[in-house]
């Protein structure tokens, strides 16, 4: 979820910690390469879990030569040059009472390597190198889909890989989900919205071959697809509508958000999408769209805190960009190398600062806020442009008038008091006009990227401390991943092209894994933000490689990739399972069933609005962020000062009913109904959202006016469109909410609730009236009050069912 930098605090403390543990000795010579290739990976894999920085069991750290020499409670771990008296070797050889590692003995070859390393002086080369052990760095292969016995089950090559594994495990896939479940699943997955009853019925009625493909292709053509995809991408891009640090001023970044929506809807190839976001401003004859895309690197948090030290802040901005790019496209925790070589992955501190050298060339002030944040791009709407032109014309006219009178004024000639007053008023008007023009201008501007003309030098910052400069470095990529093609300047453009053109296997693996995660709830490697040594090896490595290479071979076509997955039998499995299989594979790593998990925060609200018929479907995607209902003035309770953006001014009308991804994203105080459903604050890049289950979530969907209003509006819809009588109406309600009719037991429960509620509200019309005025949507006054109230209660219950907030 969150990328991490070791800030100055961490840096300084590290110095302290290292000092306490005695600084690492200069590495003795001997055995070059052996340590990095063989010994260090062995230590990482077998020892670091208990004997590295965070956890030093028995006081022993094996993550530095000094740590080994210092040893733990039992004394020094190694005696360089003397394997026979090195405690570490006695432990791994099981010669005494101490037998390590506890989970199993090392192989003879591993013990031999350790022995030889200690015998030759235990040189600690420090810098890790790619040793081929990190699966994610291996060249991307294109494995042939394996043979399977149950060939009839296979729909796409995805299924060969999944089924082959299941057959090895002597398991059978789950049956297909029924059509109602399937269309609900895929409509959420591809648009973030529920299917309408009409869409469900059409799919049920379509018995011709290719019905599923027709549903899928209809969804890919729906503009809501781009909104759905953007919801995920904006977490990665740490997109927000406020600055994040300190007073968290409002900024205007929504044009970048709309670029993302449009790019997915037009199925912009992912390599181009990558290049535009990382370096759109550097493309030859960059278009407005491409420069807009470059705002990706201006989405990070910024500060205007008065006391901040500019040099420190600028270093932080550059690191933040490098960390984000590293997480989004490399799926590696490059930020770990900010203070020291990465402990587990082949990324050195030099690599890290070479990467930041692409991102610290921005001609930006260190301290800035809100809309006054050059470099920016003016993207005025026609109305804004008209206003700007009008203001400019008036300003020019006034200035010329003043200039024309300049001679007279300059003579010092007496002016009448009336004339003096006139001139003062004119000056004031001029200043007002200029201020107004600046305001309009800023509201039409987007923070974008640019590079300074003369490259600034970049230094390694020792221990991550901006005050402690080491060697100068040039922009460059992590050495283990190879270099960009020679020729042309080394800048963000060459970096971006290298990411998608060089055969570097990470961007495709990372991206495919994330899309898989979007559909199945977990990636093939579940640590989708960390494919490094400490990440999880994929459950189906050949499948990941197959999809990755197929993605590249088909020109990074995102819709094609997603289509190949949702058309698979694997995707279409029922999420129901047996108790035995749940015990055997609780996390569904083998994919012997379909995914079932709670919807993301925005979709829970979108779903309620869609069910009620309130969702603003009329407007095309995009536009400024909106401020729907929020209780009290939460902003004012926690914010300081009187600047705009300190008080929450709620919108009205259709803006109350836009999709969740348009909701104003204030980093210091996130929209509360999203915060409780695990939406990230987007202070840092977040490729994975946790899925928790808390009482505060119940409060939101039970009592937030958004959901109460949705319930009462939906209730009116049930009465008006659900036919006559309780049975048909409940049937209608279930079809709208869950894409299925209720069963008899469910109907009994709801009927009991309905009768209780109707009785209560019949006896208390005042309460009924209150309930039916929730929210600002027009009130429906021609309905029977107790009836409408009772259906509101039923709708409130429906909106709170586990099944309603779950994709299954």
């Amino acid at each position, binding site marked *: 979820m*969150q990328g*991490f930098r*070791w800030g*100055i*605090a*961490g840096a300084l*403390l*590290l110095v302290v*910690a290292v000092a306490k543990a005695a600084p690492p000795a200069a590495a003795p010579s001997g055995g070059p390469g052996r340590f990095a290739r063989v010994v260090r990976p062995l230590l990482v894999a077998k020892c670091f879990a208990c004997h590295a920085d965070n956890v*030093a069991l028995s006081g022993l750290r094996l993550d530095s030569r000094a740590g080994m020499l210092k040893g733990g409670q039992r004394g020094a771990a190694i005696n360089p040059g003397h394997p026979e008296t090195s405690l570490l070797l006695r432990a791994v050889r099981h010669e005494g009472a101490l037998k390590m590692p506890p989970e199993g003995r090392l192989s003879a070859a591993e013990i031999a390597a350790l022995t030889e390393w200690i015998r030759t002086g235990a040189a600690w080369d420090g810098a890790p190198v790619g040793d081929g052990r990190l699966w994610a760095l291996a060249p991307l292969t294109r494995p042939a889909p394996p043979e399977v016995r149950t060939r009839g089950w296979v729909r796409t090559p995805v299924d060969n890989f999944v089924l082959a594994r299941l057959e090895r495990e002597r398991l059978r896939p789950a049956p297909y989900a029924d059509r109602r479940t399937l269309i609900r699943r895929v409509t959420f997955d591809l648009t973030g919205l529920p299917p309408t009853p009409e869409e469900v019925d059409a799919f049920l009625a379509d018995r011709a071959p290719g019905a599923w493909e027709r549903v899928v292709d209809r969804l890919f053509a729906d503009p809501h697809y781009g909104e759905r995809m953007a919801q995920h991408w904006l977490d990665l891009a740490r997109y927000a509508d406020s600055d*994040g640090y300190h007073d*968290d001023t409002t900024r205007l970044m929504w044009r970048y958000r709309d670029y993302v929506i449009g790019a997915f809807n037009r199925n912009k190839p992912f390599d181009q999408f990558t290049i535009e976001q990382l370096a759109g401003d550097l493309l030859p004859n960059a278009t407005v769209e491409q420069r807009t895309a470059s705002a990706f690197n201006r989405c990070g948090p910024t500060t205007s*805190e008065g*006391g*901040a*030290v500019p040099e420190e802040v600028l270093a932080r901005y550059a690191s933040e960009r490098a960390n984000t790019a590293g997480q989004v496209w490399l799926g590696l925790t490059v930020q770990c190398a900010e203070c020291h070589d990465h*402990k587990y*992955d082949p990324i050195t501190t030099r690599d890290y600062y070479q990467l930041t050298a692409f991102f610290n060339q921005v001609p930006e002030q260190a*301290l800035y806020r809100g809309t006054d944040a050059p470099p920016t791009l003016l993207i005025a709407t026609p109305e804004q442009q008209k206003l700007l032109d009008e203001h400019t014309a008036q300003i020019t006219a006034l200035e010329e008038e003043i200039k024309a009178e300049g001679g007279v004024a300059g003579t010092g000639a007496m002016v009448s008091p009336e004339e003096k007053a006139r001139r003062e008023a004119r000056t004031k008007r001029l200043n007002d006009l200029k201020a107004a023009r600046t305001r309009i201008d800023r509201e039409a501007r987007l923070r974008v990227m640019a590079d300074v003309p003369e490259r600034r030098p970049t230094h390694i910052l020792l221990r991550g401390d901006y005050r402690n400069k080491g060697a100068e470095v040039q922009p460059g990529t992590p050495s283990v991943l190879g270099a960009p093609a020679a020729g042309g300047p080394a800048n963000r453009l060459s970096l971006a092209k290298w990411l998608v053109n060089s055969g570097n296997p990470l961007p495709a693996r990372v991206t495919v894994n994330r899309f898989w995660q979007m559909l*199945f*709830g*977990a990636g093939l490697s*579940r*640590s989708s933000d*960390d494919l*490094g040594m*400490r*990440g*999880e090896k994929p459950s189906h490595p050949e499948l990941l490689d197959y999809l990755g290479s197929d993605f590249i071979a088909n020109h990074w076509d995102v819709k094609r990739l997603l289509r190949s997955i949702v058309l698979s039998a694997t995707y279409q499995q029922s999420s*129901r399972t047996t108790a035995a299989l*749940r015990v055997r594979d609780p996390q*569904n790593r083998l994919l012997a069933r379909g995914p079932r998990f709670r919807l993301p925060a925005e979709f829970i609200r979108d779903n309620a609005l869609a069910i009620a018929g309130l969702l603003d479907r009329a407007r095309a995607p995009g536009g400024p962020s909106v401020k729907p209902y929020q209780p*009290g003035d939460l902003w004012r309770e926690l914010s300081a000062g009187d600047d705009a953006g300190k008080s929450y001014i709620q919108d009205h009308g259709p803006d109350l009913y836009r999709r969740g991804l348009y909701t104003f994203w204030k980093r210091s105080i996130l929209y*509360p*109904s999203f*915060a409780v459903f695990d939406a990230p604050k987007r*202070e840092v890049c977040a490729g994975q959202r*946790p*899925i*928790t*289950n808390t009482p*505060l*979530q*119940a*409060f*939101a969907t039970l*009592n937030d*006016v958004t959901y109460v209003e949705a319930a009462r509006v939906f209730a009116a819809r049930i009465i008006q469109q659900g036919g006559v009588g309780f049975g048909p109406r409940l049937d209608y309600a279930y079809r709208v909410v869950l894409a299925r009719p209720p069963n008899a037991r*469910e109907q009994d429960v*709801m009927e009991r609730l309905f009768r*209780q509620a109707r009785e209560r509200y019949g006896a208390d019309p005042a*309460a009924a*009236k*209150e*309930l039916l*005025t929730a929210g600002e949507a027009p009130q429906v006054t021609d309905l029977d009050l107790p009836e409408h109230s009772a259906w509101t*209660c039923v709708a409130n*219950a429906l909106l709170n*069912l*586990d099944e309603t907030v779950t994709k299954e």
Partner: protein
Amino acid sequence: MSDPRTHSHVPPPFTPLGRRQFLGRATTGIGVVALASLLSGEGWAAPRRTAVGGRAGALEHLDFAPKAKRVIYLFQSGGPSHLDLFDYKPGLEKLNGQELPDSVRKGQRLTGMTADQKTKPMAASIFRFAQHGQSGACVSELLPHTARIVDEIALVRTMTTTAINHDPAVTFCQTGAEQPGRPTLGAWLSYGLGTANQDLPAFVVLTSGQVGQNLHTRYWESGFLPTVHQGIQFRAQGDPVLFLSNPKGMAPAMRRSILDSIRALNEMKHEAIGDPEIATRIEQYEMAFRMQTSVPELMDLSHEPDSTFALYGPDARTPGTFAANCLLARRLAERDVRFVQLYHRDWDHHGGLPANIRRQCAQTDQASAALVLDLKQRGLLDDTVVIWGGEFGRTVYSQGNLTKTDYGRDHHGRCYSQWMAGGGFKPGLVYGETDDFGYNIVRNPVPVHDFHATLLRLLGVEHTHLTYRFQGRDFRLTDIAGEVMPALLA
């Protein structure tokens, strides 16, 4: 969870055994009730996961016999001036107005607000100090009530932080790192120790003070820990917990009927599907219902006797004041809430310090002392830690003009004062020594991480054992540092 989407490949540690035990019974519909009794009883060295009512923590067992069970952190946001409250420097009176010697500053960095200020005249505090209690702790006249409890508190005059600005400094105090993204102290405790109260959150936040620095919800969030561990703000206006109240026109009985229906339908679904996540959701809706009673009951001060308000001061009758929040903190401690975080704003006195700090002390002094005394008389101070302190101290030199009656002070992280009471901290202790200028530490520094390590020790936890793997690294509150300070312990 049917598909645990955790941040790392490690199964989510917050999915405790309790859930599995619960599952075994959930299909019968009695699971929710059974959970509480199953998991009742606490005991050191007993398997932790079955040792706590409400929600078990991730720690299998405690490393030490815990002295403290809960923490109340009275955070003074903005950076109170140690030089005007707790760190008396009589020598400054003679030096008043003289330039801060370079030999004291030693080239240490300053904030952007005074780095370029031409002169840096030293400002002696205009407030009188006197020694109090058996400990003889020196306290400013601004804090008459605190002065009366000096024998109950451990006063540390040598807290030190690496940050020099509010946002990173508060983040550091709360998470052990200056950058956003890590879990806060309260979230770590909720995660590691769980909660003994199943009707209230494990981590409650109360704010007061109308101006001053922004409070980011980041200061009480769970970072990469699951959201269930984040601090829940109890508000003085509107719903004390967001969306706690039923909609207008919906009586409690109606709400209960709706909840019964939701529960019946969810149980049917659980029977059919067996997804443990459904059972958890049933449990959460029940807790929500209980909170609808427990939270208003907690916030209702009308049954507190007049003696309470005499103790905490008249402000305590006004919701949203620091005094009212101190009283609520005591009520939360009585209910065994693990971590209560108060924020009182507006200690950032760059200018006009004397007048501003007078007002701040008037708002906080009596109630802070009252809380300690009140916990003590109720027998709760023994196992409750109370912390009083901000994110840094303030400079000895004046920011802006120094006059006979007025001065300002910039941020100063090299040293600042903080006190702790109860829960195993040593009463009557005055710890650490700063130089004659209150600028550098001469003896016994207490870095933030060491303070965190010490606090965890009192809660029974070895700080290096409370870890969470995220993006391949085992993170902890104390990052890569932290040493327990035995001198602070009783």
